């Protein structure tokens, strides 16, 4: 049977030392059995490595940064679609999701581009700043946290949280501060990049365990693979990890999706304490960069997402291979200046 042709736009091509999920998602899409997929990269910066990875990305277009607003993005996607006739877009950055969620109807109606995204309510309620309420609503333990809007509030944190504590940005970045001075330094650094508020979170001692998962928007968990990082870079990102067997973690994921009817890919970042308690640190509203481990372990989550985006019914994955590992490596891609010139001046490559 001939494979169905499919054109998919993917963001997050920043396959750098702290990688975006774009390239892993693309690898997963290339593994799909039923589809012959053409990948359109959507990049923000001329140096995102994915732009130059021609064996994975067929063509790349620059798109405006999320801060330029929805109209700019829509105009640009309209242009890209006029050439590429996109079937699906899979956004992979937290910071761009608000815009894509708002634009999903317009994309479908005007350009017949499918997406499979969480609703705005789902997206908003799992924000780091709302995590305490979120935990109560869905019965998940959450470390104590607080939003702060000015440096002056840092002084009182010692009484409330004690040190160390975690200083987090609205969209990205988290640093562990061991003193008020450090907390202030991180406050400045992170607020300068992602704006206010800053989230202060209680430091929870334990092992970090993560789950990459996908929900069908109706309360069913389509797939989930838990993982523990076995090696961490100096930026705190996973360098290597291993698929775990953890029924309790799977139950947490299942109950969460049953409760909030999450639609699309997501990642749970949890801490398992000495006493085997699980604390939710963060929910990422998209696939994590290590999503390809799930594929390797037998669950192709991006493929499930593509099918659901196209309106197909997808049965939940039943199992995965425990003990599958991933080990990240970096690789020096060689390319011509001409390519950099083209993406920089023309915005396409």
């Amino acid at each position, binding site marked *: 049977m001939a494979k169905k042709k499919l054109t998919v736009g993917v963001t997050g091509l920043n396959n750098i030392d702290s990688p975006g999920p774009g390239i892993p998602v693309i690898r997963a899409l290339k593994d799909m059995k039923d589809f012959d997929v053409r990948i359109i990269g959507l990049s923000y910066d001329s140096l995102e490595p994915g732009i130059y990875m021609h064996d994975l990305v067929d063509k790349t277009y620059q798109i405006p940064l999320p801060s330029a607003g929805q109209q700019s993005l829509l105009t640009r996607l309209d242009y890209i679609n006029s050439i590429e006739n996109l079937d699906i877009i899979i956004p992979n950055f937290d910071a761009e999701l608000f815009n894509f969620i708002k634009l999903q109807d317009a994309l479908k109606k005007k350009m017949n581009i499918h997406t499979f995204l969480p609703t705005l309510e789902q997206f908003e309620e799992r924000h780091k700043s709302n995590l305490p309420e979120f935990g109560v609503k869905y019965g998940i333990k959450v470390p104590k946290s607080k939003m702060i809007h000015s440096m002056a509030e840092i002084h009182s944190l010692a009484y409330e949280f004690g040190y160390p504590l975690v200083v987090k940005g609205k969209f990205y970045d988290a640093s562990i501060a061991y003193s008020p001075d450090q907390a202030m330094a991180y406050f400045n650094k992170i607020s300068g990049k992602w704006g206010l508020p800053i989230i202060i979170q209680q430091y929870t001692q334990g092992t970090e365990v993560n789950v990459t998962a996908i929900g069908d928007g109706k309360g069913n968990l389509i797939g989930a693979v838990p993982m523990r990082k076995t090696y961490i870079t100096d930026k705190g990102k996973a360098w290597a990890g291993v698929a775990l067997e953890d029924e309790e973690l799977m139950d947490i994921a299942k109950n969460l999706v049953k409760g909030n009817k999450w639609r699309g890919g997501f990642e749970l970042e949890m801490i398992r304490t000495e006493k085997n308690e699980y604390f939710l640190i963060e929910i990422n509203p998209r696939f994590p960069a290590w999503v390809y481990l799930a594929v390797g372990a037998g669950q192709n989550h991006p493929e499930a997402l593509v099918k659901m985006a196209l309106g197909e019914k997808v049965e939940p994955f039943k199992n995965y291979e425990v003990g599958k590992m991933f080990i990240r490596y970096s690789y020096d891609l060689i390319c011509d*200046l001409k390519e*950099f*010139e*083209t993406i*920089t*001046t*023309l915005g396409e490559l």
Partner: protein
Amino acid sequence: MSIKKNLALSDTGFVFNPSTGDSYSVNPIGLEILRMLKENKKDEDIKKHLLATYQADFETIEKDYYDFVKGLEQLKLTENNG
């Protein structure tokens, strides 16, 4: 005024400085000026050419040309004793 002779100028407005590895983008009139500077044209001749080509008065061209060339100096794209 003279600019570094090894600057690579591309029709797309992309400028590459092989000695530093930096790249730049210029608009069409900027590219035109860079090309003339590379051909060792004199400042006065370049300005005259611009005046003849574009809808602008001499004062504006004089001012903007000065500003542009100062910008090149700041970006270290000019020869030291040019």
